[in-house]
């Protein structure tokens, strides 16, 4: 009798768990449709939706913690990648450096160079739409720290679309941290040692010329 009761109880418990799971997935699906979860919001960005908050150059801190559902790689990994990485979907984060380069005559697509923020300074070329590239407002160079950009896309060790280039085709682009200008202050005292040395050099040459004239 006790065994029968235990069996019934287990049966009901399993049934309840299944129902809960179904209900949870339904609620989850509804919320996902409304864009409530970060990863689904990410998916929307991937489709180039203009209605999300990520169309501007604002920070979207929600993206990183829940982005582990795709293959997470560093730029250094990709720059030393073998064929295993080829055609994999990856998520990389790095500083946008250099220039926003047109990839076609019409300018619908762009090339952005992403540099690793660690000590490797590895780089990857990212192919993206002009719309995605327009979110990157600061590109790194001597006087500018570029935007820190997170890109989800497909990595190609040998890209057939771009004559064998190693590149990353972006599905979604998000700005993690906005770039800023680096200020270089002018200080006249920094120039004094150089000016003194140049003057000494010129004087030495002048004396040399006089000595040579005297010898002749």
């Amino acid at each position, binding site marked *: 009798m006790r065994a029968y009761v235990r069996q019934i109880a287990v049966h009901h418990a399993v049934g309840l768990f299944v129902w809960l799971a179904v209900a949870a997935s339904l609620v989850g699906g509804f919320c996902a449709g409304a864009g409530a979860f970060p990863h689904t919001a990410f998916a929307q960005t991937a489709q180039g939706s203009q209605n999300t908050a990520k169309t501007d150059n604002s920070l979207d801190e929600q993206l990183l913690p829940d982005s582990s559902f795709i293959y997470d790689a560093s730029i250094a990994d990709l720059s030393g990648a073998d064929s295993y990485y080829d055609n994999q979907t990856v998520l990389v984060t790095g500083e946008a450096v250099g220039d926003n380069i047109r990839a076609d005559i019409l300018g619908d697509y762009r090339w952005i160079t992403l540099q690793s923020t660690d000590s490797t300074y590895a780089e990857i070329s990212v192919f993206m739409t002009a719309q995605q590239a327009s979110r990157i407002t600061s590109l790194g160079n001597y006087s500018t720290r570029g935007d820190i950009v997170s890109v989800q896309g497909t990595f190609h060790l040998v890209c057939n679309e771009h004559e064998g280039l190693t590149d990353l085709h972006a599905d979604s682009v998000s700005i993690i941290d906005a770039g800023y200008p680096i200020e270089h202050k002018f200080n006249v005292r920094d120039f004094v040692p150089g000016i003194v040395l140049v003057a000494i050099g010129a004087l030495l*040459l002048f004396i040399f010329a006089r000595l040579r004239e005297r010898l002749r």
Partner: protein
Amino acid sequence: MWQRLRLIDLRVICHYSGSIIIICAFTMFIPFITALLCQEWEPAARYLLSGGITFVVGALLRYCRIEPGRLNRRQALAVTGLSWMVLGFFASIPLYYSGHFLTYADALFDGVSGFTTTGASVIVDLDHLSYADNMFRFVMHLFGGLGLIAIALSIGLFGPQSSGTLFSSEGRSEHVLPNVVQTVQFIFRVVFLGIALATVIMMVLCLLAGIEPLRAFLQGLWLSISGIVTGGFTPMSQSVMYYHSLPIEFVLMILMLMGSLSFALYAEVWKGRLRPFFHDIDNRSMLVWLVIATIIFTASMSAGTLMTDLPDLMRRGLFMVCSAFSTTGFQVVTANQLTTVFTSGAFLVLALVMAIGGAAGSTAGGIKVSRIAIIFKSIISTVKETLAPDSARVATSYNHLGRRTLTPDIVRDSTTVFVLYVFTYGIASLVTIAHGYDATQSIFESVAMASNGGIVTGIVAPGMPLSLELFYIILMWAGRLEFVTLVAIIVQIIVTFVPRRKRKVEQ
């Protein structure tokens, strides 16, 4: 009997080295002006200080001998040979303090690489480098490509008496015009005209690519300099592939090929004589060699699995063959692709192309195709002599600025340089392998250093072993001087400082 250097020789060498160092000081004022114009204050102060130090040292060295007189051959060899390394040291001062080098040896490596137009770099975070520092890198290429001695001669620093000796000791022996100074000035005109034209074209292409005007101008100028002197430095870490532009790659290919032709032939074209250009042993051998190398390279790549499409091979493969052939070092594939995507056969073909290099009397490095052609002609001549009757006299000739007879002296000179290069490639490969690197990569990288090719696969990198780095610095130096000058200097130094054995006096 080996001749020792005397104190008077050392004083003369120091005097003339001082003159070369003063030229180096002036090279630093170009980035200084760039920095002022671009409002880069820290680099401006750094280049003014470095230029000042170099200027004072150069001026002081001239005091070693007030009236130095005419340079003899031994002194000229020493001045030429040592100047390349000494300038590397001075160039490393502003480079190191830019903060883009992990160690001083890295900065020295880039200094020597810049002046010898090798083009390999161990700089970190290149894309954040100031315009002034970048300008200095390309000024080094320009001065190194034109030849430091040639520049000094053209501005009359050495006087007319020593010009011939100095000019030939820098690896250039062809006088395309009656005197050396005119020859040097003609070469400069050709190079500067090429740079000016290419800069305009490249700037327009960069602007079309969406690069802002100042950057477009500077990048156009720098790439043009680097291309025509077959240097290899680029302003961006990703080398030429950064621009994703087929027209830019095409212009650079033309520049690289222009730089790997003999300057003597430009004079012929300038005079309206096209026949010597098309019949020249250098140009004909280059054409044949390029076709053979491209066919083997393509066949080898086609046997691979990753990069087999014709458009890929046309764009990436052909450019890499041109870059290797001219010993420039531009890359349109990543270092990783060279080792993972390229087949080992294609990889070794690139190394071989780089090892042989371009034409003699050009800015390209390596053994030089004309030397291979002369050795090949000599082999054929030997076979002909073997088969000919005893009474027959076999004469072999070749075309280079007119018809010339192949003499034993010419064959000996070519064979000596060939053997020295091959020997060095072998030794360098063994040294690299001894540092624990893969054998194929070691051969490739060693060839890239000794031929001043500059295409690297990852061994040459920031933080590489110091012993290997110093060895590569010496390799680049030796390769630029085509070994003979360097070997002569080493022998002179040894002979000077090793005490003579006392003769036993039999009494």
